[in-house]
């Protein structure tokens, strides 16, 4: 049976992991390669690297990092952050990334999705969508949730699917950082109205939140950062709990 995926997300700045990480057995928790290797051994199903660098050399630094991760890690990984062209994607895939995730650049130029899918295939193009509720409506936001657009979450998600994206990474800005659980109502609508996999993001605080996002939110995968980085949740233990709740996982 296809299992539900657990995905730790690593924020990267200038080739280093950003958020403080509580991995006592690591020599260098700021080293994304070492951290990625530790997560893959701990049972993560996939990894996401989100680059938040703003320097001129960011493309080169990120490409070099991807190559080092690919050399070491034997599970799939996705790279996102500031990707806006076919050339950006080409370099990352050539260096060993399995998928790339695009966000603002797709909103600004939706044709980019078609172009990337045409060149590289649906299977490696993830579209990340950040949204929050304004007057009861889910509105797509840019720049980490700071800038609202005119797009409705569900309309945009359907367009993204129609343009050929392989999956959607949906982050609820209302839930992100709250540790109060995922946006399961919106997630379940996405999952029912679309026919591509949906990754839930934003709000993970405890094991029950993951159970809920798979059962109520009907998510195909769940992404989190700090609960894993600070070892508030151990992936093996999380997966055992999911299995006890009859949710298929890879143990």
């Amino acid at each position, binding site marked *: 049976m296809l299992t539900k995926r657990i995905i730790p997300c690593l924020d990267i700045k200038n080739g280093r992991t950003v958020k403080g990480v509580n991995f006592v057995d690591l020599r260098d928790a700021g080293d994304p390669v070492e951290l990625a290797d530790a997560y893959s051994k701990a049972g993560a199903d996939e990894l996401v690297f989100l680059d938040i660098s703003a320097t001129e050399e960011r493309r080169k630094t990120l490409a070099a990092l991807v190559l080092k991760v690919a050399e070491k890690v034997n599970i*799939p990984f996705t790279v996102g952050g500031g990707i806006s062209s076919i050339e950006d994607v080409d370099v990352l895939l050539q260096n060993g990334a399995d998928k790339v995730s695009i966000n603002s650049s797709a909103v600004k130029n939706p044709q980019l999705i078609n172009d990337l899918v045409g060149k590289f295939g649906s299977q490696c193009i993830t579209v990340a969508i950040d949204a929050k509720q304004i007057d009861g409506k889910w509105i797509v936001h840019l720049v980490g949730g700071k800038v609202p657009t005119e797009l409705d979450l569900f309309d945009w998600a359907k367009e993204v699917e129609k343009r050929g994206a392989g999956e959607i990474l949906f982050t609820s800005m209302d839930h992100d950082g709250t540790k109060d659980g995922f946006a399961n109502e919106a997630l379940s609508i996405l999952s029912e109205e679309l026919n591509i996999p949906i990754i839930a993001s934003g709000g993970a605080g405890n094991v029950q939140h993951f159970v809920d996002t798979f059962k109520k939110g009907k998510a195909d995968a769940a992404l989190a950062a700090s609960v894993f980085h600070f070892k508030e949740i151990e992936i093996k233990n999380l997966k055992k709990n999911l299995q006890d709740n009859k949710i298929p996982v890879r143990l």
Partner: protein
Amino acid sequence: MKIVIINYGAGNIQSIKFAIQRLGYEAILSNDPEEIKAADKIIFPGVGEASSAMHKLRDSGLDRLIPKLEQPVLGICLGMQLMCNYTEEGNTEGLGIFDVSVVRFDNQVKVPQIGWNQIESLASPLFDGILENEHIYLVHSYYAPVTKDTVAKTHYGITYSTALQKDNFYGTQFHPEKSSVVGEKILKNFLKL
């Protein structure tokens, strides 16, 4: 041992090269027919769209070379699909090694299938030491139905072939290079054939 990964411009071959490196071997990337013919083991990768990948094979003449190879050949993902008679994707004629046609998942399930699923009915030396129902990583929208060459099966809405074998030709729909320790073991089994 000389290992060649066929490099015809279709996708992520770096990961396969690294996976082989982690097993303690070196692989070279090549599209040179002489170099491919001289290899002990050949890996035929592929991600992306079938018709454009097949075009690239034809342009380099590799479409005629590959079916004639006599050493062990492992097709991975789209590589495996192109070794079949035909694929619905882009209405593409394949290399005709495996006598089966590749079709698209219907919309009863989410397409593409992305993630870790299980393999069963294992019937190839590729799976020596691998238990039934181990998890492997898949990402695909098209599949090869079960046929006489099927050596591993997986359920996703229907039951289909996740590995095929005929004579010296092997194919896996899953990515051994991304399937953690299970995948590494399968890759190692191939290199030891």
